[in-house]
């Protein structure tokens, strides 16, 4: 059967996330972007909603079960408030969710509780690499087996909170396969850049370059244990999350520019009463809906273990990235000169918008 209604539980969660997005993330977003810093209390408030905790079974200290559909609904709501804040709040998931999905029993026992029993703490993951043709399935960072250890070499980019992270889940190329490795920050050869990454947006999210030079990781710390794991479900979960975040940011830009167009007068009428503007808004709304439904379907297929979840998530992420660029660009256009001024948030959303094509690895459901 088809159905498009969130459950009551999901609705309650969306309401809670929506409130946090509106009351906490959005008001803080501009200053955080300008100062390049998020207030810690914002992170702990977001953490208290318990998105990650609710996706981890009781056996590992959580209180629920993972659902990609729920994740998608929540991430869209949160990203409606602010993207950098959302990615920051959800950073520990980058470490914990892959362990939940693909980790060995020992790894789950060892790490999951560690992440969720405390206050928000910087556990993170490193997937992205600094190359124009970065491909999560063809990493340049390598892992090689030497005796009882894997030796990691390479460089990772855009790693959130790497500086303070106790553990980083590093993805590397092992004989052509992408595999995760749980790397302690104490490891010899692991170097986190002093300088933060400077990007077109996401200034509030501390991102670092991570250099690995002959970093030795015990076989037991390979994600999934000595036998390793399938990377596909992790990548699918990342793509679905990115699509949902793109929908959230696009929807923020749409709503803001729509409200502006209803207030702003030109030639004696509200500009929203001009078809040139009204049609832009109609198309923005239509494309947001299109991407949202694709993301929902991909998430549902992921939850159901459908074979084509991989392709669906790929299409959802690709489509949402294009959509977010189009919608956020138009939001700036509708505000005209005012849209270009940093007083309004639309220019920030437009800078966010361009990023979704390369943010795979910064969020996971």
């Amino acid at each position, binding site marked *: *059967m*088809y*159905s*498009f*209604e*969130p*459950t009551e539980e*999901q609705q309650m969660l969306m309401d809670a996330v929506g409130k946090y997005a509106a009351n906490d993330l959005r008001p803080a977003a501009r200053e955080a972007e300008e100062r390049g810093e998020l207030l810690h209390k914002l992170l702990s408030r977001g953490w208290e909603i318990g998105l990650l905790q609710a996706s981890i079974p009781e056996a590992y200290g959580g209180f629920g079960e993972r659902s990609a*559909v729920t994740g998608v609904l929540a991430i869209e709501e949160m990203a409606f408030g602010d993207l950098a804040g959302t990615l920051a709040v959800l950073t520990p998931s980058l470490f914990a969710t892959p362990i939940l999905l693909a980790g060995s029993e020992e790894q789950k026992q060892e790490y999951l509780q560690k992440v969720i029993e405390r206050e928000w703490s910087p556990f993170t993951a490193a997937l992205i690499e600094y190359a*124009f*043709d*970065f*491909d999560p*399935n063809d990493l340049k960072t390598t892992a090689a087996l030497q005796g009882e250890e894997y030796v990691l070499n390479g460089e990772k980019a855009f790693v959130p909170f790497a500086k303070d992270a106790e553990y980083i889940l590093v993805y590397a190329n092992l004989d052509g396969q992408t595999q995760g490795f749980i790397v302690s920050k104490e490891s010899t050869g692991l170097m986190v850049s002093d300088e933060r990454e400077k990007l077109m947006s996401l200034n509030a999210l501390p991102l670092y370059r991570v250099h690995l030079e002959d970093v030795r990781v015990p076989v037991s710390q390979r994600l999934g244990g000595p036998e390793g794991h399938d990377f596909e479900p992790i990548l699918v979960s990342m793509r679905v999350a990115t699509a949902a975040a793109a929908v959230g940011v696009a929807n923020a830009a749409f709503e803001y520019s*729509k409200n502006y*167009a*209803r207030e702003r007068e030109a030639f004696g009428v509200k500009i*929203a*009463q001009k*078809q040139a503007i*009204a*049609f832009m*808004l*109609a*198309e923005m*709304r*239509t494309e947001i*809906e*299109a*991407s949202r*439904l*694709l993301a*929902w*379907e991909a998430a*549902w*297929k992921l939850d*159901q273990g459908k074979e084509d979840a*991989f*392709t*669906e998530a*790929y*299409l959802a992420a*690709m*489509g949402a990235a*294009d959509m977010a660029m189009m919608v956020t660009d138009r939001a700036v256009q509708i505000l005209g000169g005012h849209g270009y001024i940093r007083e309004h948030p639309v220019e920030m959303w437009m800078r966010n918008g361009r990023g979704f*094509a390369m943010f795979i690895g910064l969020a996971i459901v």
Partner: protein
Amino acid sequence: MPIEFEPPKPIVQTQLVLKTVADEMMRSRSRYFDEHEHEIPWDYIEFMHSAMRAMGGNGLAPRENGKKSEEGEKRPPIGYQMLAAQIEALCWGDVGMYHCLPGGGLGAAAVFAAGTPEQKEKFLARFNEEKPTFAAMSITEAGAGSDNSAIRTRAVMDETTHEWVLNGEKIFVTGGDKSFTEYEKLGEGFIVVWATIDPTAGRKGMRGFVVEGGTPGVKITRLEQKMGIRVSDTAAISLVDARVPFDHILGSATVEKDTSGFKGAMATFDATRPLVAASGVGVARAALEFLKEKLAENGVQIRYGLPRQKLTSIERDVIDMDIMLKSAWLMVVKAVWMADNKKENVLEASMSKVKAGDVCTKITQKVVEILGPLGYSREFLAEKWFRDAKITDIYEGTGQINRLVVARQILGYSGKELR
């Protein structure tokens, strides 16, 4: 019920059956009837009619819903979802031939939306009789297209005979010929003609009139020669003192302050918009699948999963088309799911039509481009689908009219505030 994307089993089964129908009865005839415009595909019509009767259906119409399952649990209604899936599957076969499917079509939909219970009984029973029977809707005039409140066809009551006397010129009546002309092989059809009972009243004066096939004073003056969907007849009609019984008027015989007559016409479109969108998705899928077949034959693989930077131009195009097609279909499904569940869906219905109109024109155009000479040649059907698809963005609300509807919905504007 939580969010779910599993197509209901009855729909999946129907899609399988219709795939065969589309291959055997539609695709096999597509080219012939495209090149023999205004020939009627009798064997197809008769086959489809008997097949639909055998299945116990009265053509394509949403069924009564909510039957109990074996466990006694009430099943959610899927009538409109089924309809959308059927239309998509048939239009994957041939959109023009889908329009030649016997049944009440938009004419019956108008009676359904604006008629009294007596009228529904009187006019809608005929579609399940032995002979295939058609009905059509006629609203457009040469001077009134998207702005259909500007129609000039008049209906005047003759007090002595208690009949309506209709005068005017109508164009673009889909299936008008098969609904009106008294072909031996067909049952008695009708056309719902929209006319004004008070030209000073604007849309408040608009009413639909059921004009039975063969009514004296009514003439099919022309069958249009079209870019595509050529097998579907598009009639021009003239009405000269055409007399229609009093009780053939849909809605009130007097002009009231409300606009129920006009709204009746518009309600017909609200219900059918996602269905037209479904037809567009069907053509688009046909074109995209054909392209993928041809590419595979030529050893071109689409490498899903690669970053854009590593894709070839063809791969990017195909992937973009996949995105468009899938999301357009999901928008249709959501709109009809809302209709089935009695949720107000004006916004979703119009968005689905906006999207499908865009998607099916873009996809068919791109497919012809990528296929090059193979796409442009009449040896294959790609060029035909290109021509067929364009109508989706025009009829039953152009892409622009639907953008207006969407915009008014999201902005909370009336027609006056956003013209």
